[in-house]
């Protein structure tokens, strides 16, 4: 099945196949992010700015700020998790483990 993704309520959450899966207010640990020089960037997600999906892999750019140094900004593309192409079931990544935002723009279907 085709994975359908929506970013709703001013970017408050990302829905994957019509189920709310990823929320603002999580803290994401980002390595080598462009947001700030903290390592890792201790990033409070305040809004999903863009979302995309390719082959079940759901990604987003997230607005928020590093709660270590206070710098705010929008991340490069981060993987949020994967949706099973057969069942549609979503497995989220764990925000509090370390993630590396990816500047490359995938050939993905934007929302």
């Amino acid at each position, binding site marked *: 099945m085709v994975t359908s993704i929506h970013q709703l309520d001013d970017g408050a959450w990302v829905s994957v196949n*019509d189920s*709310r899966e990823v929320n603002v207010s999580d803290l994401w640990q980002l390595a080598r992010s462009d947001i700030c020089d903290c390592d890792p960037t201790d990033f409070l997600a305040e809004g999903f700015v863009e979302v995309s999906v390719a082959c079940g892999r759901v990604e987003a750019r997230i607005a928020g700020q590093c709660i270590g140094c*206070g710098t705010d900004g929008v991340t490069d593309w981060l993987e949020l998790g994967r949706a099973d192409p057969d069942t549609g079931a979503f497995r989220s990544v764990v925000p509090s483990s370390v993630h590396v935002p990816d500047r490359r723009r995938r050939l993905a279907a934007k929302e």
Partner: protein
Amino acid sequence: MPTKVEGWKDEAYGNEVRERIYEFAEEGWESIPDDEHDAWFERFKWWGLYHQRKGQESYFMMRIGTPNGVLEPGQLEVVADVADEFARGPADNPEFGGAVCDWTTRQSIQLHWIKLEDIPEIWDRLESVGLSTQQACGDSWRNIVGCPVAGKDKNEFIDAWPVAEELNETFKGNDDYANLPRKWKVSVTGCSEGCGQGDINDLAFEPAVKIIDGEETKGFNIRVGGGLSRKEPRLARSIDVFVTPEEAPDIAASCSALFREHGDRDDRFNARIKFLVDEWGAEKFRRVLEEEFVDGELRTAGEDLRDEYTYNAGHNHDDGEGHADHVGVHEQPDGNYYVGLSVLVGRMSAEETRELAHLADEYGSGEVRLTQRQNIIVTDVDSDRIDGFLEEDLLEYHSPEPGVFMRGSIACTGTEYCSLSIVETKNRMVRYGRWMQDNIDVPEGMTNFHTHLSGCTASCAQPQIADISLRGMKTRKDGEPVEAFDIGLGGGLGENPQFADWVEMRVAADEVPGYIRNLVEFFAEAREDGESFRAFIARHDEEALNGLVEPEETSYTDPYMHNTKMTWYPYAEDDDMGSSPAPTNGQGEPLPSDD
């Protein structure tokens, strides 16, 4: 390219959605097709139904729009009954109990834990007394706000209640304006004190006077493009137009048609009219309005009353003049009284609400009114019986003479129900309010001190126009993530409205009361003679305010430090997301979940 939401709205939106809600209610939660949840919940908003946050699937927040905050005789009791019967969730709130009513910052009513299956019965009861949830949320005309004592104010400039009523009748359910690019918030102010808060609305009618054919005519100046949301607060801007009260519906139609045609449907972040006014400027707005949306010529603005505005203007109301924040006992033109009760964070239990409805019937006309400070006013209290009313038990807690810190407290919905939230809000503000009342000496002459607490940048509690602005954040304490606030100072309305400067960032929630105490003590020592808090803050620049005093742990304790958004309900005994009973069926029994 139009957004996905626009696509859903094109397929079905507005009045037609009602039939589908009836069908879904009849057949139950599971009858909403799995792959259409997002689309339907977006459409439900137009009917005042907002799906509660993750962990609370199948439960809805329901908003009832009460124009100008007016509840006519008989309506409050029905609200109490509906809340009592239908607004109970799987777990109670430790401060407020099981079934509550929220009085909101836009003079509306909000209920929670509403089940789809109950909506037809609730609508029946509400509509039987003339209440409605139509357009209470969603992309259209929202509840119209104004001076809550319109028509009951001894010094008012014009009675704007009939104007608000007519706008409500004209634009509620009106298919021509049902599908706008984003929400459309309108304020109508007829008093000379500025308490309609026009400056933070999309469209504002502000009292003004103009000489027309040699005659002094009372009416309104028009402002557009105010709003607080996200980190982009804007004050409404004058478009140099005056209208008479009779012309209000026409100009409102023109402005909302302009928004309908020119608002940004490609980017919801950029859709509010405030951004169009940024882009165009007021002059172009006026020109396009006149050329494309108005028959004939617009009048230029009249003389406004803004230099008389006292509402949230940073004055201390000790002179008994004017209606200030509407709390307390005030005489009406007919010799009766209105009595404003301070309702901490705008929340009353269903039981208290029913009791208040009875008191309003017994001592007054049965009418009550909601304010934009989340308070409630009982109007038309018989002049002979005012003393009896003031002795009623209910008024001991919801008091017309509250302490300064209780009186000034406002809080939004927060992690209890809201998807956008970062932190817990209402219960925390209740605890802050009580602690401040018990632990901070009120500086001499200070009758007003506004603390507005919002759980995120959407700013539903209007944090930017308070003395103390609190906006949900996170920080780390001993390495652990905890709930926190950015703190702003110096906001308020009045002749020269001012948004807060954000001066202390990421203060752990349990150190906020200590910060406020330190700041108030500093103010008491360093102020000039009789200087108000707002004036005192205004005299310091942002740099001086940074680090003026320190946040500090105190005797205040905070049970909600632990990332309440990650729970299914912050106060449940077992609050783990995985322990949520939702979604549930019409009896509140858990349904097997899909994933």
